[in-house]
């Protein structure tokens, strides 16, 4: 019980703007290094090393941008939902910043997932778009992100606006399992999940490693941009505080 309380206290202490600024600034160079290494291997592997798929030919190589973008669009919303809980329950100051700056990144990844999916769908399905369960729910996710961004920019009172935004994020979270399970619940054109935690992987290992590398690279990119944005937000808000001089 004491260990759990200490652990919780330690986690909460990292929510302080000063600690976050200090540790994120230290971490950023390493994130950049990891990003470039993962991206290099992912692109080289995906475009050159990996053989063509026996059914889809070289068109399957779009998987190396499509799947990471789609995965991140869901992952980022999950992070936003967690930040929304932190806002509502613990009133942690950094949490609304996390929601605000994650939303545009999530919208970007949703957009990329839809565009790259469309470019993949045309040669494979013969169409740029179809009102398939997976595609439609992903489009709804993009609208959710855009709605959150618009609401945040329109809300006049920051404190009340942050709490309402957090509630909106949590309501929208219902779309995440719908997107994930859409290929199982409905008869969809979209193929089933390539990667799953609870079932065997349906992709050859030679194709898998560059895919995992690209997913990791996209993750690192998200944290790089998120930390940078949160840091400049903190600088802008607290520029007269002396603690910034030591950061």
């Amino acid at each position, binding site marked *: 019980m004491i260990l759990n309380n200490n652990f919780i206290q330690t986690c909460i202490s990292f929510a302080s703007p000063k600690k976050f600024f200090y540790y994120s600034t230290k971490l950023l160079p390493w994130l950049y290094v990891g990003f470039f290494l993962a991206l290099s291997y992912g692109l080289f592997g995906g475009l050159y090393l990996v053989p063509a798929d026996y059914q889809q030919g070289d*068109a399957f*190589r*779009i998987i190396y941008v*499509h799947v990471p973008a789609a995965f991140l669009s869901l992952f980022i919303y999950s992070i936003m939902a967690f930040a929304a809980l932190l806002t509502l329950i613990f009133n942690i100051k950094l949490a609304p910043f996390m929601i605000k700056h994650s939303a545009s*990144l999530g919208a*970007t990844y949703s957009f990329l997932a839809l565009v*790259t999916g469309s470019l993949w769908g045309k*040669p494979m399905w013969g169409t740029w778009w179809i009102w398939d369960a997976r595609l439609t729910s992903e489009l709804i996710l993009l609208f959710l992100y855009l709605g959150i961004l618009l609401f945040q920019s329109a809300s006049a009172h920051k404190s009340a606006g942050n709490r309402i935004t957090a509630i909106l994020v949590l309501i929208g979270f219902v779309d995440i399992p719908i997107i994930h399970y859409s290929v199982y619940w409905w008869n969809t054109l979209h193929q089933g999940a390539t990667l799953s935690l609870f079932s065997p992987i349906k992709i050859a290992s030679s194709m898998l490693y560059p895919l995992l590398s690209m997913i990791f690279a996209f993750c690192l990119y998200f944290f790089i*941009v998120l930390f*940078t944005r949160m840091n400049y937000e903190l600088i802008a808000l607290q520029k007269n505080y002396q603690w910034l001089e030591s950061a």
Partner: protein
Amino acid sequence: MNTLSQFINMNGYGIYIWPAYGITVFVLFIQWLFTFRRWRRCKLGQHESHS
């Protein structure tokens, strides 16, 4: 040269593959660039206020 043109052609799928990668790289780069420039402006403003 033949290998390069084959690589770009991707057995006829290059017209879909390269725009997918190109749009992804472009959008992510622009997003990062705007973020980095704003961060740099903030940092410069911070140094000026402390000097």
